[in-house]
């Protein structure tokens, strides 16, 4: 690993943030924080796209990242509406409460 950032630096940083988000999804119980961790993972994937785009000096990756951001915005809106809905029924946002389909 050199002091100057290269493609591998960005990819490894992205892998690290993705893994942190994955751990967060697995250890947390709060639905809102689960969505935050998913946003983290989406962001790390965006970083990968942009790093590869810069490496190849093409801009297709930027367009991909742009679409991912749009989809993430839509997803956040719907997900938080679901959180409000669940809170109204269960008086909490813990994913442990959401097991009505389990049995």
């Amino acid at each position, binding site marked *: 690993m050199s002091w100057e950032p290269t493609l591998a*630096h960005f990819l490894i*940083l992205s892998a690290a943030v993705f893994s942190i988000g*994955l751990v967060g999804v697995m*250890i947390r119980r709060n639905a809102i924080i689960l969505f*935050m961790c998913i946003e*983290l993972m989406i962001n790390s994937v965006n970083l990968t796209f942009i790093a590869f785009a810069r490496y190849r000096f093409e801009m297709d990756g930027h367009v991909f990242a742009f679409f991912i951001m*749009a*989809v993430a915005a839509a997803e956040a809106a719907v997900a938080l509406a679901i959180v409000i809905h669940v809170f109204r029924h269960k008086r909490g946002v813990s994913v442990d409460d959401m097991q009505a389909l389990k049995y």
Partner: protein
Amino acid sequence: MGFWEPLFFWIFAFGAIITSCAVIWMRNPLYCALALILDFFCFAGLYVLLSAHFLAVVQILVYGGAIMVLFLFIIMLLNLRERETLSIPFQVHGLAAVVGGVAMFFFAAVVILNTVDMDRVEEERARYAEAVEQAEEPVPLMTESAIEGLYADVNETAVEEQYVEKLRAWRDGTAKPSDGKYPQFDPQRPFELPPSLEPDPELAQVVPGREGLYGTFKPVSVMLVNRFVVPFELTAVLLLAAIIGAVILAKRRVA
């Protein structure tokens, strides 16, 4: 690559990792959301280092602005009690999750380090820097597609020349009425680019490696309305569907 760019890379990289850890360790969801905002700003800084200026701005506007306002609004609206905000006590499940995450990171890192040829990266970087130094014309941004008609081959120099000519016509008073504020519709080029500012060669030299239009608004928007116009319009449909779905879900009772 000077001194500052690597320094800022390491600052933003460690900032991103530390704030990501804060997001999953903080007990209060409010602190998690604030850490996530900092994280998004670190990512925007990394995008700037990758000369994705447009996406850096979009990152701050969409993520740091819209999405995080939504998160904070929901957290404050629901007014979560402390018992609900507590994460689970330490148990085997959490330990297994952490071990799994660390293992995944190491697998990914090993794969990356074995796949990315570091010598090749250095070689390409040196080759590109040399090409930029010796180039008389801008480094081409886009290559032509094999599928005819699907890809607008944007020749930046030709576009620039065309507008310089038009500006000159306006200045000299030889412009025709059809050269008005908006150019006449040309079916061959349905998506006309707005007149750009004159490129300032001195300004381009301020930030090394940031020459040309790479990563700025213009090429991204040109690609969005030419080659990627169908997914672009579908995104609009998706956002409409998300708006309707969110309203219906959050309403107390759908009439």
